[in-house]
């Protein structure tokens, strides 16, 4: 028995309906070490950690702390065992102050601001954080919110900290600060787990790496004894350079001209700032950027779903005429024959009707077609059967509610429908998020096929490797501005990574 072990998980299995999210996983978390939990999207990392945090309960298996069996029935139990988790979506009450959030749920705590503040300050000093305890959460930046989350966990005396994708929304500088804090905590003897799929961060911060693949535990290695390539192998199963087929379409031509596009949200925050680019027919234009850099707003404003404050969006017809799209509703855009297809990020909440079957969802595009008041059910039914067949959707029937299908099948229904509309422009937001490798490749092939048909494909993605191998050009967004547009065949990951955090990329930074 190693006294260094903080938590041991043995044979943990968790199912959601028919999906096995975690399949008999063993994991050891050690004191005074940083463990990276590595895996692709959907490999079950968050689910596994949620069971330590008391959000889910394992269907099988046992958790041990210091050799003793442990049952964590609720987050409260987790805190009592010294486990604190910082979730990807911060669990903070917006209208409360930082201090109020920090003491939330504590049993024997008087609401005495002085004591709280001094205790918070002590924690901050110890690990070099800066927060204002009386600031309201809704006035904070993302990284400030994260700080509050970490302090909240430490305030409760957690010895085991779990951070779910902590760097996804941070700038490099903020990431570096966070890592400093984590190292301080490690020195203090805390056990730390970070869930991530970013290899460079794994190499930079962790002592050990545990890898999950498709819900199964692959193994744990010491960081100093491994390499990114070896980790990738563990993550995806076999050594892949992605090898996405990227043919070139010869007669590219301008299809969509966007100039000075500016959007402001309800609260007056500028989401897009003077975005200018041209998307060409016969190419895949990738869009990269840190989460929340304006990707969603960009696609939605082009499709008429998000109000445009300034700028122009022009569609170029086959005859070379330019059609203005600003100020049109989605229906008006469709009626002018622009032929735009859109696969939104939120599949069930925006792209599909969860309670309807495939047929009902095919209708979402065609329901208005035809004269008269009655719905045409026949052609959507045929289309549903076609998509069912060609994309190998796993569903009992075309009327089975799509909400009950697995993520990959849901996406196939959505993409299948959008491609079937024979678009001139196909926009996709994170189309492979949460999908397994095979389905992902199926989607890549569909997009490339569309490109070779002369369609202008816009692909918003998060995985730079995919963007670099799939796209022809990549537009990089940074804080709502276009940081640059690069040729995907020649650009490097580092170059793009830098542009994501600094408008203009390395050169601009050098000038400063």
């Amino acid at each position, binding site marked *: 028995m190693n006294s260094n072990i903080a938590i041991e998980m043995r044979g943990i299995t968790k199912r959601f*309906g*028919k999906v096995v999210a975690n399949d008999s996983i063993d994991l050891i978390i050690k004191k005074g070490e940083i463990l990276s939990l590595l895996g692709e999207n959907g490999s079950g990392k968050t689910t596994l950690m949620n069971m330590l945090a008391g959000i889910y*309960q394992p269907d*099988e298996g*046992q958790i041990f702390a210091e050799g003793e*069996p*442990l*049952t964590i*029935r609720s987050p409260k139990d987790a805190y009592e065992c010294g486990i604190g988790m910082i979730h990807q979506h911060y669990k903070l009450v917006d209208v409360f102050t930082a201090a109020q959030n920090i003491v939330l749920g504590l049993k024997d705590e008087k609401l005495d601001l002085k004591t709280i503040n001094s205790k918070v300050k002590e924690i901050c000093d110890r690990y070099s954080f800066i927060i204002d305890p009386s600031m309201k959460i809704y006035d904070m930046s993302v990284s400030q919110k994260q700080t509050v989350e970490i302090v909240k966990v430490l305030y409760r005396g957690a010895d085991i900290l779990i951070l779910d994708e902590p760097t996804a929304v941070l700038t490099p500088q903020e990431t570096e600060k966070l890592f400093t804090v984590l190292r301080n905590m490690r020195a203090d003897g805390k056990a730390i787990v970070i869930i991530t799929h970013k290899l460079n961060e794994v190499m930079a911060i962790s002592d050990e790496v545990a890898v999950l693949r498709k819900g199964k535990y692959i193994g744990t290695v010491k960081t100093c004894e491994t390499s990114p390539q070896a980790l990738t192998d563990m993550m995806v199963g076999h050594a892949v350079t992605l090898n996405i087929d990227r043919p070139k379409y010869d007669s590219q031509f301008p299809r969509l001209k966007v100039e000075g596009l500016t959007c402001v949200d309800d609260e007056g925050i500028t989401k897009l700032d003077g975005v200018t680019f041209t998307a060409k027919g016969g190419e895949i234009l990738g869009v990269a950027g840190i989460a929340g850099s304006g990707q969603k707003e960009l696609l939605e404003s082009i*499709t008429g*779903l998000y109000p445009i404050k300034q700028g122009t969006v022009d569609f170029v017809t086959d005859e070379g005429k330019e059609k203005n799209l600003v100020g049109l*509703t*989605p*229906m008006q855009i*469709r009626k002018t024959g622009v032929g735009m297809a*859109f696969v*939104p990020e*939120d599949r*069930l*909440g*925006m*792209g*599909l*009707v*969860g*309670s*309807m079957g495939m047929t*009902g969802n095919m*209708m*979402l*595009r065609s*329901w*208005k077609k035809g004269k008269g*008041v*009655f*719905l045409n*059910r026949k052609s959507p039914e045929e289309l549903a059967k076609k998509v069912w067949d060609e994309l190998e959707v796993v569903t009992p029937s075309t009327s089975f509610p799509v909400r*009950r299908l697995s993520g990959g099948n849901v996406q196939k229904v959505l993409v299948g429908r959008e491609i079937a509309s024979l678009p001139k422009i196909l926009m996709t937001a994170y189309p492979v998020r949460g999908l397994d490798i095979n389905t992902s490749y199926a989607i890549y092939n569909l997009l490339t096929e569309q490109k070779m048909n002369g369609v202008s494909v816009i692909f918003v993605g998060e995985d730079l490797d995919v963007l670099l191998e799939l796209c022809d050009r990549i537009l990089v967004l940074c804080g709502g501005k276009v940081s640059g547009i690069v040729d995907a065949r020649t650009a490097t990951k580092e170059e793009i990574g830098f542009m994501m955090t600094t408008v203009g990329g390395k050169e601009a930074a050098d000038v400063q």
Partner: protein
Amino acid sequence: MSSETVNIPFVRLAKRESMDPRKVWAIRIGSIVIAILLGMLPMFITGNNPFKAYQIIISGALGKPIYIKQTIKIAIPLLGCALAIAPCFKMRFWNIGAEGQITAGAIAASYFALNWYDKVPSFVLLAIMFIAATIAGGIWGLIPAFFKAKWNTNETLFTLMMNYIIIGIVSWLQGGPWEGRKGSQIIPMFNDSARLPVVFGIHCGWIIVLVLVILMHIYMNYTKHGYEIAVIGDSENTARYAGMNVGRIMMRTMFLSGGICGIIGFIVVTGANHTLYNGVANGVGFTSITVAWLSQLNAFAMILISIMLAILTKGSNTLQTKLKVPASISDIVIGILLFCMLSCEFFINYKLIFRPRKTEIKEASV
């Protein structure tokens, strides 16, 4: 080993994937049975024999042809109004202003009944009244929808307040401009030409609502409008994505819903009451919510449920005269019915996972 068993929670919840439709209906019917059993409680507490009470309810509602006719008369507005509410509820627009929309329709119909009865032939008069009632009810439903569409104003309270406003207006008409004999506070009875013809002993309102059942079934399942309503009810975002104008569809649907309520108002004043008074809607707007919900917004199921509730209402009146049990027992039973129906959905959507027995755990851990 024993420490492990203690640590496993006794019961956990999980979402259910799907369920055999037959089992679903068995659960729903079972919950109705439980509701009827629970409905015996207040009768029991007040010292009556519940079985006898139910027997009186049934015989009071169906015992004689004339009772049956009266029961059907109660069912007509219930059914019609449930049909009106169905599209709103499908859209997740909580219209509880059917009461007011009925009254608005009744006022418009009464205006022509009182003022035009000697100007046009009977069937023209009835047609005018019908159209006027539809428009008036529709407008009364449209107003809250407009504000919901524009500023997302809480429609539940808005539609409800509209009830009190229009009912107040009828009270004013009763004692003011439309008062018959001075001081009577009563609006005069309609002329014969403003009364609905009788078919098989009941005013022909029943034909109108049955036609509405078929029309509503078609509307909800086979038309573009019905599809739009279903999509909005599932996700407004998806509706917007599909190019639907959510606000306009909301207003249109509420105009339709209010319009149908208006028709019910027309049926009630011309077919049943032959006059207008402030209790013209008589709680139908609320009870019909129950009808719509219990029948899962299925137009044909509404026929059965509305008759069931009408039997309960009519029978409860008999119960009051015979056993001196207040007629509001019907509201209690209806409330319990709703509670049970709402509760049973839980067993359809979730499953309970109980802690396995000790022996099983031992086997598993070996």
